[in-house]
C-alpha cells in the first residue's frame, strides 16, 4: 500500500485523469445501453421444474393473465347506452395490436351463450345488435342469470357491473399500453357509467415500471441528505465534495459495467445507488476523520506525510470492511433468481469500487486540491465528546456486564419468538400504497366478480378421453365445489365440468336437477361432439385438451396474497390421492402459482445466503485477525441484528417478500463493519499498550467516533427509503436503519464486553 500511495502522490493528475476517463466511458455506456427490465416473467428462473411445467401448461391451454375492464352503472347495466358501451369498448379493445385474436377478448358481447332450444342446442352470442325494448333486455337478463358460466363471471350479482377480460400477447405489457387502455376505458365513463381497469398484468407491469422510477426520485434526496450529513460531520466543503464524488463515481462505474455487459436494470438493481451511497460514504468518513484528526494532532506534518499516514493506517480497516460488505452481498449469489444475483454481484462490485476510490481517489484529490480543514476543536485543547465520554461509557459497560448480557438474552428471546410469526407474502398488490388506484380498482373488481388472480389446476391422465369419464368429472366437480365453499378467497372455478353440466341442463329443458355430470360416458362424448358441431367456440380448449387427456381448472381468487394462495393450494392438494387412484396427476400452473413458487425460491435463497454469509464472515474475520475466537466474537453484533430484524418483521406483521428479504444480507454486509473497525482498533491499542484500561478507553474513543458517524450516515441514507411509494421499500429503509442501529449498539455493548472478558491480545497474568 505504501508504494501505491507513493505512486498516487507522484502521479496525482494522471490518476485523476484516468478515473475521469473511465467514469466518462461508464456514463457513455449507461447512455447507450440503458435498458429497464419491466417484464416480470424474465425474473423467474426458467429452468426450475415448477416453471417448466407451468410454461408447458400455459402453452397447452393458452393460459395468460387478463386485463380486466369493468363497467359499472349504479342503475343497472341493462340499458341501451351501457350495452352500446360494452359493444364498442369490446370492439375497440379487439383492435389493439397486443390482442392477437378477437376471441381473446371476453365480454357479454363476445361470450358464448350455451342454451337449449326446443329442437336442440344453441350456442350464440347474448346480443349482437343493441336491444331496443325492455322485453329484449329482460330476455338477456334472464339468459345471463340462468347461465352458470357467465353469471357473476361476466355480470355482477347485483347486475350493476359487467366486465371485459382481455388476454394480451405474452410480454406485451408496457406503460404506454396501460395508459392507452385507461384512456380508452375512460372515454366510456359518463352517463352513469364508470369504468375500472384491473388485472395481474397491470399490477406486475406497473410495479416493474414504478420501482426504478421510485428510486430515481429517491436518489437525489439521498444524495442531498448525505451532503448535509457529510458537511456536518466533516465540516469541510472540500472533503464533502470529494466524498460525494466517491459515491457517485462508484454508482456510475457499477451501472456502466452492468449495462455495458448487457444486463438490464431489474427492479432490485434500482436499490444499488442508495446502497452504494450509504456504504461508500462510510469509507470516506473513516479516511477523512482520520486525516482531520492527524492534521490536528500533527500540525508539523507535510501534506504528503499526512496522506501517507492516512492510507497506511486506514488501509486495513477500509479494505476489511469493504471485503466483508461485498461478501455479505455476494452471498446472495446463491439465490436462484437472476435479478437478485445481478443485484448482489454489482452491489459487491460497487462496494469494491467505492473502496478503490477511497484509497486512490481521495489521496490523489487531496494531494492536488489541498488538505481539508482540521478537526474542529471544541475549546482549546480539550478532549472532544467522544474522548471525554468514551472512558466513562466503557467503564459503565464493564461494571454492568452481567446486566448487559442478561438484557441481551431477554431481547433475543423476545425477538426470537417474534421470528416465528414471520410470514411470506407474494402479493404484488400489497406492495402498493392503500390509496393507489390500482389497489382500489382491484378491490372493486374483486368485490363484484369472481376475482382478479388465477390459479390453474392441471389434471393429466395417461389415456385419451379420461375427461369424459363421469367418475373423473364428478371428482373435479366435488373438488371445485369444496374449494369454493371452504376457501373464502376463491370466487369461482371454471372447468370442462361446467360445460358438461351446462349442456346436460339445457338439453333437458333447463331443469335444475340435470345440472350434474351425466353418468354415461357415451352421452358425455356425444355432448362434446354436439358442442363441436354446434359451433361452440375454442374456449372449450382452454379447459381441456382436444384428446381429453389433460384438463385445466381455472380458479379465480379475490386477491393475490400468499395466505389465500396457500390455502387454495392446500385444499386442492387434498384431492391429489383420489385423482391418482383414477389415474390422474394433479399439478398447478399459472401466474398466481408461479409467483408463489418464485417467492418461496427467494426465501429459500435468503436463508441459504444468510447461512453462507455467516460462515464466510466468520472465516474472513478469523483470517484477518488470525483468531477463530475473534472471528466468532465479531459476528455477535450481526447475529443479534439478524434476530432482532426478523423479530421486528414478525411482531409488526410485516411480510417477507422480494425486497424485505434482502434485509438480512444487507444487515450482515454493512453491520459487520462496526465490529471490524472496533476489533481492529482494539487490537492495535492492545498490542501497543498492553494495558486493558487504556486500550478500552482509546478504542471506545477513536473507533466510537468513526462508527457512530458511519451509523448516523447509513441510518439516515436508508431512512430516505421510507418516503418511497412502495411498502416494501419503506419497510426495507426502516428495518435496515434499525439494523444499523442494532449493530452499532451491539458492537459497543455486548461485543465489547465479550472482547473485554475474553482477554484477547493480553498476555495471561
Amino acid at each position, binding site marked *: 500500500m505504501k508504494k501505491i500511495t507513493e505512486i498516487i502522490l507522484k502521479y496525482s493528475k494522471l490518476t485523476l485523469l484516468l478515473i475521469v476517463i473511465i467514469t466518462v466511458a461508464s456514463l457513455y455506456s449507461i447512455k447507450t445501453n440503458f435498458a429497464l427490465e419491466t417484464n416480470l416473467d424474465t425474473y423467474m428462473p426458467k429452468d426450475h421444474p415448477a416453471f417448466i411445467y407451468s410454461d408447458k401448461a400455459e402453452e397447452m391451454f393458452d393460459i395468460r393473465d387478463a386485463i380486466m375492464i369493468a363497467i359499472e352503472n349504479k342503475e343497472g347495466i341493462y340499458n341501451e347506452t351501457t350495452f352500446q358501451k360494452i359493444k364498442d369498448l369490446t370492439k375497440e379493445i379487439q383492435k389493439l395490436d397486443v390482442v392477437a385474436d378477437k376471441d381473446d377478448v371476453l365480454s357479454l358481447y363476445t361470450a358464448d351463450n350455451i342454451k337449449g*332450444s326446443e*329442437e*336442440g*342446442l*344453441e*350456442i*350464440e352470442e347474448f346480443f349482437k345488435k343493441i336491444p331496443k325494448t325492455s322485453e329484449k333486455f329482460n330476455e338477456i337478463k334472464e339468459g345471463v342469470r340462468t347461465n352458470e358460466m357467465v353469471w357473476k363471471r361476466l355480470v355482477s350479482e347485483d347486475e350493476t357491473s359487467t366486465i371485459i377480460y382481455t388476454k394480451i400477447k405474452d410480454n406485451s405489457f408496457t406503460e404506454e399500453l396501460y395508459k392507452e387502455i385507461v384512456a380508452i376505458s375512460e372515454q366510456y365513463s359518463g352517463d352513469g357509467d364508470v369504468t375500472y381497469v384491473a388485472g395481474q398484468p397491470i399490477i406486475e407491469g406497473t410495479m416493474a415500471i414504478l420501482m426504478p422510477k421510485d428510486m430515481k426520485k429517491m436518489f437525489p434526496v439521498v444524495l442531498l441528505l448525505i451532503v448535509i450529513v457529510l458537511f456536518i460531520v466533516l465540516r469541510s466543503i472540500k472533503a464533502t465534495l470529494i466524498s460525494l464524488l466517491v459515491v457517485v463515481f462508484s454508482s456510475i462505474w457499477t451501472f456502466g459495467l452492468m449495462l455495458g455487459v448487457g444486463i438490464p436494470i431489474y427492479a432490485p438493481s434500482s436499490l444499488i445507488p442508495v446502497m452504494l451511497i450509504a456504504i461508500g460514504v462510510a469509507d470516506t468518513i473513516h479516511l477523512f476523520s482520520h486525516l482531520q484528526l492527524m492534521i490536528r494532532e500533527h500540525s508539523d506534518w507535510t501534506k504528503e506525510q499526512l496522506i501517507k499516514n492516512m492510507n497506511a493506517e486506514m488501509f486495513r480497516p477500509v479494505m476489511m470492511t469493504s471485503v466483508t460488505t461485498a461478501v455479505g452481498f455476494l452471498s446472495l449469489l446463491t439465490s436462484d433468481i437472476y435479478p437478485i444475483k445481478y443485484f448482489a454481484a454489482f452491489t459487491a462490485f460497487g462496494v469494491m469500487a467505492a473502496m478503490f476510490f477511497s484509497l486512490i481517489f481521495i489521496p490523489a484529490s487531496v494531494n492536488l486540491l489541498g488538505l481539508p480543514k482540521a478537526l474542529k476543536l471544541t475549546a482549546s485543547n480539550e478532549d472532544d465528546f467522544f474522548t471525554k465520554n468514551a472512558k466513562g461509557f466503557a467503564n459503565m459497560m464493564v461494571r454492568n456486564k452481567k446486566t448487559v448480557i442478561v438484557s441481551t438474552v431477554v431481547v433475543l428471546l423476545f425477538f426470537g419468538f417474534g421470528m416465528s410469526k414471520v410470514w411470506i407474502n407474494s402479493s404484488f398488490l400489497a406492495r402498493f400504497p392503500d390509496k393507489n388506484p390500482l389497489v382500489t380498482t382491484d378491490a372493486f373488481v374483486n368485490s363484484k366478480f369472481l376475482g382478479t388472480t388465477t390459479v390453474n389446476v392441471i389434471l393429466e391422465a395417461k389415456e*385419451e*378421453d379420461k375427461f*369424459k369419464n363421469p367418475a373423473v368429472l364428478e371428482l373435479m366437480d366435488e373438488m371445485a365445489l369444496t374449494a369454493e365453499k371452504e376457501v373464502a378467497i376463491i370466487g369461482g372455478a371454471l372447468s370442462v365440468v361446467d360445460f358438461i353440466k351446462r349442456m346436460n341442463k339445457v*338439453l333437458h329443458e333447463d331443469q335444475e336437477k340435470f345440472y350434474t355430470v*351425466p353418468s*354415461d*360416458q*357415451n*352421452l*358425455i*362424448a*356425444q*355432448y362434446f*361432439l*354436439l358442442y*363441436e*358441431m*354446434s*359451433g361452440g367456440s375454442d374456449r372449450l380448449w382452454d379447459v381441456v385438451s*382436444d*384428446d381429453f387427456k389433460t384438463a385445466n381448472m381455472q380458479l379465480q381468487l379475490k386477491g393475490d396474497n400468499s395466505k389465500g394462495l396457500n390455502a387454495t393450494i392446500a385444499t386442492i392438494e387434498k384431492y391429489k390421492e383420489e385423482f391418482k387412484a383414477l389415474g390422474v396427476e394433479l399439478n398447478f400452473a399459472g401466474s398466481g402459482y408461479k409467483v408463489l413458487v418464485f417467492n418461496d425460491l427467494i426465501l429459500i435463497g435468503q436463508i441459504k445466503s444468510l447461512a453462507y454469509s455467516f460462515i464466510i464472515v466468520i472465516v474472513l474475520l478469523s483470517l484477518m485477525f488470525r483468531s477463530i475466537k475473534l472471528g466468532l466474537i465479531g459476528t455477535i453484533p450481526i447475529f443479534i441484528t439478524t434476530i432482532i430484524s426478523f423479530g421486528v418483521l414478525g411482531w409488526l406483521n410485516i411480510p417477507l417478500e422480494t425486497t424485505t428479504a434482502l434485509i438480512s444480507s444487507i444487515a450482515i454486509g454493512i453491520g459487520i463493519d462496526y465490529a471490524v473497525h472496533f476489533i481492529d482498533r482494539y487490537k492495535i491499542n492492545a498490542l501497543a499498550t498492553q494495558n486493558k484500561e487504556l486500550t478500552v478507553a482509546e478504542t471506545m474513543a477513536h473507533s466510537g467516533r468513526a462508527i457512530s458517524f458511519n451509523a448516523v450516515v447509513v441510518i439516515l441514507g436508508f431512512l430516505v427509503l421510507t418516503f418511497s411509494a412502495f411498502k416494501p421499500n419503506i419497510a426495507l429503509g426502516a428495518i435496515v436503519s434499525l439494523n444499523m442501529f442494532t449493530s452499532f449498539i451491539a458492537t459497543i455493548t455486548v461485543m465489547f464486553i465479550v472482547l473485554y472478558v475474553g482477554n484477547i491480545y493480553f498476555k495471561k497474568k
Partner: protein
Amino acid sequence: MKTIKFKARVIAIALISAFGISEVTAQSADEIAKKVYNRTTAKDGESDMTMKLVNSKGETRTRLIHQFFKDYGTVEKKTMFFKSPADVKNTAFMNWTYDDDKDDDQWLYLPALKKVKRISSSSKDNAFMGSDFTYEDMEKRNPNKDTHKLLRTVKYKNETCYVIESTPKEEGQYAKRIAWVIKDKWIPLKIEFYDEDVELLKVLTITDYKKIKDYWIIVNQEMKNVQKNHKTIITLSNIKVDIGLGDTRFTQRAMQRGL
C-alpha cells in the same frame, strides 16, 4: 360422396375467377376456376371415411364414418354415421346445403340421449368436427366471390398444373389461396391457404385420386396447419357412386335407425 362433394368444394374454393391484370391470363384464370367449380360430380353415393387428426406431438386420433350423399340440384343432402370411436358410435350427422345463400340445416342424433338435436348453423370458419378443415373448406365456393390470377403453369407431380391465386373480394377467412390445378382433370393437387396477415396457414395436399365412373374423386388428402403443426388426413374407401339412393336416407328417422 359426401367426400366427393367436399373434394369438389375444396377445389372450387381454390379456383375462383375474376378480373386479373392481363386480359388473357385473367380470362384463363377465370375459366379454370369455373371449370373446377362446374366439374361434374356424382348424383349420389356412399363411402367409408377415415378421418385422422394428428397433433404436433404426432399423436393420432381416428374417426371412422360412413357417409351418404345426394345432390337434389338446389339442395345437397348428406348423412354421416360415426362408427368409431366407441363413445360416439351410431351418432349421426345430417346436413342440407342450399345453393342459394340460405343457411345450412343440420341435425345430430345422440344415441345416448336417443334424440335428434338440431344444430344452429355454425360459422363457416369453424373447424369441422375438430379437424383442420373448416366448414367453408368443405363447401362449394362460388368463383364469383374471388378474384383469380394465373400465376404460372408448372409441372407438378408429373402433371401439368395451373397455379391459380384466388383473393376474396370481401374479407373472408383467408387472405388468399393458391391452388395447383391439374390441366384437363380440373382437380387440385395442392392448395395453400394464407391467413389475415398473408402468412401461410394451411396446406392441402391431394395424395391419391382416381376416376370412378365419369368422375375424378379424391381418395386421400391431407390438410396441414403449418402454424399449429397439426394435420388432418381424410381417406375414402368403398366408394360407390350413382347408386340411386332413396330420399328416406336423408331423414331424422334414418339417422335414428343407423346404418
